[in-house]
């Protein structure tokens, strides 16, 4: 294989990874925030304590988190077909990636919101704020650095998961490394792919760090 062929492969893998990870990140951010906020609202001593809802949600999240991704990938195939009409390809991979990452991010959201001091929430309550105002103006806003840091970790985990998504024909850099490096013993291609992955992850981390630093006022 010539270097230009390798470059072509890498470029395609990078595009696929970016698409898979990018799209599932957007969905994960929305879903994870929703679930994370619900978890904190419904817990004991929360703004809207609902024991059964909290217990059920916690259970679903824990199941999602304990399932090995490769099993989840296969388990959600029927659901994937219902949503995107196919079970193979890059777009189909987005479904299991999102389902796998939402519980992960939801827990990080929960932790970030718990970091907001109780007296700040009490202060907002004392001002006559509604629950919705407390969530928007206090909890989510004050937790922003933690929410972004958590999302950074999640995106990088998604990059890792996306390698396994190659199993359902998702493509991407991870899949490339497995196919060429592991199955065909084309060590150079594998090393080049891993190199691109490292740079990719590094970029995400740096971007996340810069954002967190900008949001952090302590």
């Amino acid at each position, binding site marked *: 294989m010539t270097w230009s062929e390798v470059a072509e492969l890498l470029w395609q893998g990078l595009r696929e990874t970016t698409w898979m990870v990018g799209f599932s990140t957007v969905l994960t951010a929305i879903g994870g925030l929703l679930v994370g906020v619900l978890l904190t609202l419904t817990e004991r001593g929360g703004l809207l304590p609902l024991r059964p809802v909290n217990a059920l949600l916690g259970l679903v999240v824990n199941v999602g988190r304990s399932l090995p991704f490769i099993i989840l990938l296969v388990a959600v195939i029927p659901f994937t077909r219902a949503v995107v009409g196919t079970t193979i390809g890059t777009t189909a991979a987005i479904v299991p990636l999102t389902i796998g990452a939402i519980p992960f991010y939801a827990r990080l959201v929960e932790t970030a919101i718990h970091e907001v001091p109780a007296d700040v929430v009490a202060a907002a309550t*004392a001002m*006559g*704020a509604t629950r919705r105002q407390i969530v928007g*103006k206090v909890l989510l806003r004050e937790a*922003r650095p933690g929410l972004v840091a958590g999302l950074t970790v999640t995106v990088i985990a998604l990059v890792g998961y996306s390698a396994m998504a190659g199993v359902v024909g998702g493509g991407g850099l991870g899949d490339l490394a497995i196919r060429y490096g592991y199955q065909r013993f084309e060590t150079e291609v594998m090393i080049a792919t891993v190199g691109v992955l490292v740079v990719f992850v590094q970029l995400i981390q740096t971007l996340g760090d810069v954002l967190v630093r900008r949001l952090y006022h*302590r």
Partner: protein
Amino acid sequence: MIQIEGLRKVYRARRREVVAVDGVDLAVRDGEIFGVLGQSGAGKSTLLRCVNLLERPDAGTVVVGGVELTGLSGGRLRAARRRIGMVHQHFALLASRTAAGNVAVPLEITGVPRAARARRVAELLDLVGLAGHADAYPAQLSGGQKQRVGIARALAADPQVLLSDEATSALDPQTTGSILELLRDLNRRLGLTILLITHEMDVVKRICHSAAVMRDGRFAESGPIADLLRRPGSELAGGLFPLSGAAPDPEDPVLDLTLSGAVADQPLISQLARRFDADVRILDGTVQELAATRAGRLRITVRGDAGPVAGWLREQGVLVTEVVR
């Protein structure tokens, strides 16, 4: 302005019960500064949090500005809370917002339009002496400045009442002084009624008109400070003006004098000496300008019979108690 009757609050945790507030009656008049003094764990914070229903009392009623808060919930409770400002020991500011942003929060909550909000915020920051720090984040401000932001925020929605939970306890003495001065100034200029809790005698001395001493969830005594000082055995008097020292001659009687109001300015000791041709020694004492009244306590010893001396002092309006060894 605030009437509390029969207030009781019990915390239940793992089959253990803590009676934090155990039957408190309290009346704060319009435009006064009322201080609740007590040691840590006395139930002061719980009492204060019951006033705006951050904690729902187990029994009793809370009326603020004629509205019974204990009878409200939902939107009507939120509306009532907007008329009550609160200042917190650890400031409770939003770290992600500037000083101006923090002061704007109550205005956003009540839906004040942006332009009016900006004007009001500028006005409030000016009022608390932080006009130049509008764009500073809490992390960039000193403790005293943070508390000024907290006070400006508490005043933003034009409250009738300010609740203060140990507003100066996290501050150094000098900053404490300036924050107390600000509170007194706001009380005078805006006629703001303030209910504050503290464990510092000095706070009561410097700004309170009335006070209560709280212990184990109850008020040991309560009322206008001038009245409390005239009451024999007052804990507040003992706390504000602690006296110590014994007579050089153990045979001589020792008297503790509590002076409150006009009598505190009389040349009592020299009159005493002239009238009785007595040997009077001062063992301990102070006379100070309090927020409520000029007052003080003295411990004296008199050679010989103390009876006539004590009698004359009582005629002058001095509270006299003989110290028994």
